[in-house]
C-alpha cells in the first residue's frame, strides 16, 4: 500500500512539475517579448473572457461569435476562457503575459481589473462590455440593449390583456438596467401597467426558471421577457404551456421551436466586435467609453413574421416611429450607470 502511494505521489509530482514547468517557460518567453516593446512585429492575438459558457445561446454566445468573426475577418489568432470572481485577474494577467494584443472581458465586472492590467501590460488593450473606467489602452464598449427592451416594453404594454407583464432574469447590474428600459417602454404605452420582476439565481437551473415563469403567469402576466440565457427554453416552454406570449432577448429567438416567441430585443454584436478589433489592430484605439446602440445598427427589435397579423397595425407604426426617434436621439431610453 505504501509503495503504491509513493508511486502515485511521484506520478503526481511529475505531472504537476511538467505542467508548471511548461507554464513558467511560456510566461518567461512572453515577458521577454513584452520587454522588447515591439507590437508591430507581433502577430495579432485576441482573447475573450466570459462570465459563463460560450455555448449559452445568449449573452456569452454572442461575444464568442464576435470573436470568431475577428478570427476570420481580421486573421487574428483567438482564444477564449470562462472566468468569474478571483479567476478574472488570473485570466487577464495570463493573456497579458502571453502577449495578446486585445483582451475582451464580456461584462461590467471585467472593467476594473482590465484597467489595472492595462497599466502592467502596455502592449495589450483591455476592453470590457460596459463599465466606466478607462485608460489609454483600456476601455469599455457597451451595448445599449435598453433601447431594444424599451420597444419590447411598448409592445407588451400595448398588447397585454391583463395589464400585467413580467421580466425574468439574473440580478446583475447590466440586466437590471435592461429591465428598466422595458419598464419605461411598457409605462409609455400604458401608464397603469403592472411590471413584475422575477429574479432567478442560476439560468442553468431550468426547474427554478420554469417555476418562476409559471408563477408570473399565474399572477396574471401575459407577456414575459427574459434575460435567462441558456435557461430561456424553460421560459418559452412555460409560456407555450399556458398560452401566453414570450419575448426573446440578446439573440433573435423568433423562430424558437416552442413557437411562443412573438418578438426579440436583439444585439447584433459581430460588426461592433470586428470594428473595435480593427481599430486595435491598426493601432488607432484610444480607450474610452463607447455606447453601441440602434444608431450604429447594433441593437434592434424584431417582430416574428408568424405573429405579424396578430399585432395591431398602429402598434407596428408606433414602434417604427419610436425606433426613428431613438436613432435620431430624440428619444433617450433610461439606463443605469455602473
Amino acid at each position: 500500500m505504501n509503495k503504491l502511494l509513493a508511486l502515485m505521489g511521484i506520478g503526481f509530482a511529475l505531472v504537476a512539475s511538467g505542467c508548471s514547468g511548461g507554464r513558467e517557460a511560456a510566461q518567461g518567453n512572453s515577458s521577454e517579448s513584452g520587454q522588447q516593446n515591439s507590437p508591430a512585429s507581433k502577430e495579432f492575438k485576441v482573447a475573450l473572457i466570459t462570465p459563463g459558457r460560450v455555448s449559452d445561446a445568449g449573452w456569452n454566445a454572442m461575444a464568442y461569435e464576435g470573436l470568431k468573426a475577428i478570427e476570420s475577418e481580421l486573421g487574428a489568432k483567438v482564444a477564449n476562457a470562462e472566468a468569474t470572481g478571483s479567476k478574472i485577474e488570473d485570466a487577464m494577467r495570463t493573456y497579458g503575459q502571453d502577449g495578446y494584443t486585445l483582451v475582451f472581458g464580456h461584462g461590467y465586472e471585467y472593467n476594473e481589473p482590465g484597467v489595472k492590467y492595462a497599466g502592467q501590460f502596455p502592449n495589450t488593450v483591455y476592453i470590457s462590455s460596459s463599465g466606466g473606467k478607462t485608460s489609454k489602452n483600456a476601455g469599455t464598449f457597451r451595448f445599449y440593449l435598453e433601447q431594444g427592451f424599451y420597444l419590447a416594453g411598448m409592445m407588451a404594454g400595448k398588447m397585454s390583456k391583463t395589464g400585467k407583464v413580467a421580466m425574468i432574469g439574473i440580478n446583475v447590474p447590466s440586466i437590471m438596467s435592461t429591465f428598466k428600459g422595458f419598464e419605461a417602454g411598457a409605462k409609455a404605452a400604458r401608464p397603469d401597467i403592472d411590471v413584475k420582476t422575477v429574479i432567478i439565481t442560476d439560468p442553468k437551473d431550468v426547474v427554478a426558471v420554469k417555476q418562476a415563469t409559471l408563477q408570473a403567469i399565474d399572477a396574471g402576466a401575459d407577456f414575459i421577457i427574459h434575460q435567462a440565457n441558456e435557461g430561456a427554453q424553460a421560459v418559452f416552454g412555460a409560456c407555450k404551456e399556458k398560452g401566453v406570449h414570450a419575448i426573446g432577448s440578446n439573440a433573435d429567438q423568433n423562430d424558437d421551436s416552442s413557437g411562443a416567441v412573438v418578438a426579440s430585443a436583439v444585439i447584433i454584436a459581430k460588426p461592433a466586435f470586428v470594428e473595435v478589433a480593427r481599430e486595435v489592430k491598426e493601432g488607432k484605439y484610444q480607450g474610452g467609453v463607447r455606447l453601441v446602440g440602434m444608431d450604429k445598427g447594433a441593437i434592434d427589435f424584431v417582430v416574428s413574421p408568424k405573429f405579424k397579423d396578430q399585432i395591431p397595425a398602429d402598434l407596428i407604426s408606433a414602434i417604427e416611429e419610436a425606433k426613428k426617434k431613438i436613432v435620431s436621439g430624440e428619444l433617450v431610453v433610461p439606463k443605469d450607470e455602473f
Partner: protein
Amino acid sequence: MSWFIQVLFFSTPTGLAALGETVNQKAGQLNIGLEGMMLTAAYFGALGAEITGNPALGLLLGVLSVVPLWIIQNLLTIHARQDQVVVGTGINLAAIGITSTLFQQRYGDAGRLITIPTFARFGGLDALVFFMVVMAPVIWFALHRTAWGLAIRAAGEYPDSVESAGFSVAKLRWQASGIGASLAALAGAHLALSIGGTFVQEMTAGRGFVALAMVSFGRWKPFGVLGACLLVGFAEFLRFYFQVRQPIVPYQFFLALPYVLALVVLIIVGKGTSAPMDLGRPLRSNK
C-alpha cells in the same frame, strides 16, 4: 390544490434521486456522484427523445447511459475499495465533461436552445411523479419488512455480521446502488423530459447534492426523505410566489428559507444519530 401539484411536480427530480440514495446509504454507501448520474441521464434522455421523437425511448436511453457509471463506481468502491467521495466526485466531473462535450459537438460551440418532446401529463402530473409517490411506501416496505431489507440495513450498519450470516455484502451493495443509480437516472430524465423539455449544460444545477442533503434531513426514512424534498420544494415555490405577488419581501429571504427549515427540523428531530454506522466506509477496511 394547484400549488400542491406544482410543488409535487417540481420536487420530483430531487425526490426520486433522494429516495434511491436512501436505499444506497442504508447499505452503507455514499453516492456523491448522484449529480453526475442525473446530468448524464438528462443529456442522453434528451438526445434519445430528440432523435426518436418519443420521450419514453429517451427515458430508456437515459437509464442505460447511467449503467456504465454505476459499474465503474462500484468496481472502484466495492472491489478496489477506494474512497467513495473521491470516486463520486470523479463521476460528477466526468459527467459534466462528457455531456458538455457531446452537447457542443452536436449543437455547436455557441450552443442552441433545443426543444424536445415531453411526457404526457394527467392533471398536471406525469407518470414519473406518481412513480415517486409510490416508491416511498415500496422502499419503506422493502427495507423494513423483508429479509432482503434487513440484510441491506445490516450491510450498512455492521457488514461483518452480514458476511458471517452467509450473505455477500458486495452483492447487496451492488443491488442497493443499482436502485440508487436507476432512480437517479429517472430523476435526470424527469428534468429534461418533463420539466425542461430541453437540455441545458449542467442543468442539474446542484439538485443532486440537494438530494444527498435530503437523505440525512429525512433521517434515512423513505417517508421522511420524501417529506423533506416536498418541504424544500415548497420553500422554492414560495420564493417565486412572493416575488410576483408580494415583492416587499426580499427574494434572498426565500433563498435562505430551505436551509432555515432544515436547521429547525434537525434541531427538533435530529437528536442522536440515525446514519448507518458503516456509511462511506470501504468494505473490510481496518476499523
